[in-house]
């Protein structure tokens, strides 16, 4: 087999293996076939292994042949020639996508192995691995996407799986509320992404990154749109990246996301999902080169997020929230690096940070237990580390503006007060007016079976969704 054909095969293998995992787990669930824990875990392992093998195979070919980019064309998913409308399925293996895909496979594999034990005999074991499969496919499609539409496809899969995994412990209301909160932020990000993709499509006449970003390979390609257009498109993409990565002003969802099981927190909010926004900015980084205001905006968002994350992390009272904001700090720095044009540095930073954070988050639940076991074993307290060895977050020094950082900059409260509450009030009022109008038209005869509500065994403590309770819920 020729090396180029082999590389194409490896490329398809990298994408197909997570797709087949989702297909097998999904079809089994649809048909009501219960897969054993062992079978589910084995399927996941095989899929990740083959995907990783495919990615490494492409990397080996790239290194061996000195190629910097290998496109894998699947073809037109949808094509309307006369309208010049194409949904082109194309994957690109280059210096950006291959490391990110390999990182995704390695971390997903690690977390899959961890979850196999961590979630053993959990009622939602199968559900976790179904969402995990959706996430893995979404990450790989996003990482390897060669067109902006394909990237959007993966982006949406990641968003859905994230929201559903945050609500994994679905019999409690708080994880569910937090899952919904994250979904709302993601929908805003998705809307911005979609708008940017369409604008870009209109400006360049193609959804292909190669067409939009010039003919060069990443990171040397040059955008073929003017600075003003690049700025508007770039700003929309920046909103999308900000929402997806939990940067300011959308940082409120980061600690909420920790409601999910530890493996999902580790893989999504410590490692991969949270970096997807930065990855998007890296992918469209040629746009930054042609618009100085856009670069300034990117650096500003990154800088503010880094400062915000650093201070907020210092006053958090639980380890997962502290880690979430510590991630935000690093993410802010990564975005600043992207804005300043240090693209390789940003890529290396993403990889290093993702690996470290995964380790920290996977270790977090058992760390305290281990300390207690050690103390029980030696019959005394563990010796305190010397103060100068402690990180600033561990020192008991007062933090300036403690209340502000503890309340996470009042960002959630501000969004709630100025966006959610007026929206809810307005449409509850509209609903009330509609009801009155309809009732008047009906001659004030209410529906006969309006009270035909609810079985007695359903929860009997309805919490009406008034504007007040909406506010309370969102808080």
């Amino acid at each position, binding site marked *: 087999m020729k090396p180029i054909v082999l590389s194409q095969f490896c490329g398809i293998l990298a994408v197909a293996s997570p797709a087949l995992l989702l297909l097998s787990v999904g079809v089994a669930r649809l048909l009501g076939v219960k897969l054993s824990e062992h079978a589910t875990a084995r399927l996941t392992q095989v899929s990740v292994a083959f995907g990783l093998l495919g990615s490494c195979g492409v990397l080996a070919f790239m290194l061996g042949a000195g190629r910097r980019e290998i496109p894998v064309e699947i073809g037109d998913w949808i094509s309307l020639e*006369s309208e010049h409308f194409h949904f082109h399925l194309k994957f690109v293996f280059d210096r950006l996508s291959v490391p990110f895909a390999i990182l995704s496979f390695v971390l997903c594999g690690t977390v899959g192995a961890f979850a196999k034990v961590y979630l053993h005999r959990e009622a939602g074991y199968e559900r976790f691995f179904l969402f995990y499969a959706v996430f893995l496919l979404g990450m790989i499609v996003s990482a390897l996407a060669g067109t902006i539409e394909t990237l959007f496809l993966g982006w949406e899969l990641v968003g859905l799986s994230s929201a559903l995994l945050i609500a994994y412990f679905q019999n409690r209301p708080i994880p569910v509320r937090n899952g919904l909160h994250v979904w709302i932020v993601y929908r805003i990000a998705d809307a911005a992404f979609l708008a940017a993709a369409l604008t870009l499509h209109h400006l360049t006449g193609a959804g292909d990154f190669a067409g939009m970003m010039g003919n060069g390979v990443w990171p040397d390609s040059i955008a073929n749109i003017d600075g003003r257009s690049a700025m508007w498109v770039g700003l929309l993409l920046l909103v999308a990246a900000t929402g997806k990565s939990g940067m300011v002003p959308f940082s409120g969802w980061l600690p909420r996301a920790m409601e999910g099981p530890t493996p999902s927190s580790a893989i999504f909010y410590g490692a991969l999902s949270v970096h997807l926004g930065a990855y998007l900015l890296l992918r469209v980084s040629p746009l930054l080169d042609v618009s100085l205001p856009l670069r300034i905006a990117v650096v500003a968002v990154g800088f503010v997020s880094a400062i915000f994350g650093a201070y907020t992390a210092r006053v958090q009272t639980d380890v997962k929230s502290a880690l979430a904001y510590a991630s935000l700090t690093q993410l802010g720095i990564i975005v600043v690096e992207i804005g300043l044009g240090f693209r390789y540095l940003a890529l290396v930073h993403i990889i290093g940070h993702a690996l470290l954070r995964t380790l920290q988050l996977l270790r977090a639940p058992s760390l305290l237990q281990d300390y207690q076991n050690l103390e029980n074993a030696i019959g005394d307290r563990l010796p305190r580390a010397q103060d100068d060895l402690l990180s600033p977050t561990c020192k008991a020094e007062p933090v300036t503006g403690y209340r502000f950082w503890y309340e996470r900059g009042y960002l959630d409260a501000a969004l709630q007060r100025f966006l959610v509450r007026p929206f809810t009030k307005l449409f509850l009022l509209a609903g009330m007016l509609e009801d009155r109008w309809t009732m008047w038209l009906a001659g004030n005869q209410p529906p006969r079976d309006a009270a035909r509500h609810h079985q007695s065994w359903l929860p009997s403590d309805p919490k009406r*969704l008034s504007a007040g309770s909406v506010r309370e819920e969102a808080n």
Partner: protein
Amino acid sequence: MPELHFPWLELAILLPLIGSLIVRFPKDREKARRISVGFAFATLLAAICEWIDFVRLGQFEAHDHWDVVAAFAHQNVLVIDELSAPLFPLAALLYLLTIYSTLKTKVSRFSMSGTLVSEAILLATFSCRSGWLLVALLAIGVAPVYHELSIRRKESARVYLIHMMTFIGCLTLGYAILPADAALAPDRPGFATLIAGGLLTFGALIRSGIAPVHCWMTDLFDRASFGTAMLTVAPMPGAYAIMRLVLPVAPTWAMQAIAVVSLITAVYAASMAVVETDSRRLYCYLFLSHSSLVLAGLELVTTIGLTGALCLWISIGLSLGGLGLVLRSIESRVGRVDLARYNGLYDHAPMLAGLFLLTGLASIGFPGTIGFVGIELMIEGAAAVSPIVGGAVVVATALCGIAIIRAYFRIFTGTQVTSPISLAAKPSERIAVIVLTFLILGGGLFPQPGVSSRHHAAEHLISRRPGAAPLPDHTLTPQQVRQNQ
């Protein structure tokens, strides 16, 4: 005009009519339900055969073989074309699944005979392209719902009746004063054409539930059985009326102005869905938002927008039809679901939860589902008219997405309940679930044949407006025929 190889249209209309008479006899309602399922299934088969036959012909339009109605009326009354051909099986499928998934305990509340009659009227409407007969069929379609509301359920039908009378009045008056040559120059309309077009449009918009004349829909969902309410709105006869009666005569600027009104409704209804606390009304607003998007696409009068709208029409029929069936199944077990609290039904009905999520996501155009392409094309077509219009479509779908996941969480999660009865899906519901899932995912993963077919229909519909660039040939190329197959 080309002929189908068999009188599929007449058969598809006649079968439910005969069925509606037969199911009146058995006193055992379960037996009546089984008979209804048989007739609805036979109707679906006839509708599918009609579609296959039509696609194989490769023509834009065709009429029945051995057309008995034409022999009496001396003109081709029952005609199928590229617009209505897929709507036939879609409507038949929705009726079949609704009847089939009706639980034994609810058979007495749901009129099988009335449902089959309304199926026959709807199919007749979809096979009628213009003229007084179409107006009459749209008017007759009001009757079965009124019968259920007023006679069977003893509910106030005033809201429904006021709106439907206005709808019928507008259609009748508009069509009566429409000049015979109105379709010759739609972009240079005379005064009479403008008035007639305005009346026809207003009538069709009432039937489609465009704000602020949408309250009859929420009222209908409150007072009628869920199945009847869903089947009244889901096939979107109002949109069909616009395509047949308004598109040929309305000037482009007027159509695009109506598109903007439809988009406002889409955003408004999606916003209402986000704060709604009743499951039926949530469904109503979701449907309203989506149907308004379809209307907006139909009225953009651009080929790509129209293609998107036609794709969306089918995808919404399947996805929101499926969502309605799930809600109906849940309602038949636990009563009207209050979305102001968490109901925690996942553990008892995981399959219904899965289908709720799948159909809901399909309706908002989630990638990999049948709705994805329609929404993409719609946004593309809307953005071509104006970026703000495109933005409105994006906002509406984003809000609907929030409403659907919120409803999913409220219905299926958030608490744990112990049920004294089994809430698991019954075999009939499982089959309905699997059929819909297959169609939603199949159409989403392999969208090209459907999109090509809808694009071809859109091109022809646009080209039939005077002043539009004519198509070189009104027959499909062999390649397109193969694609459609």
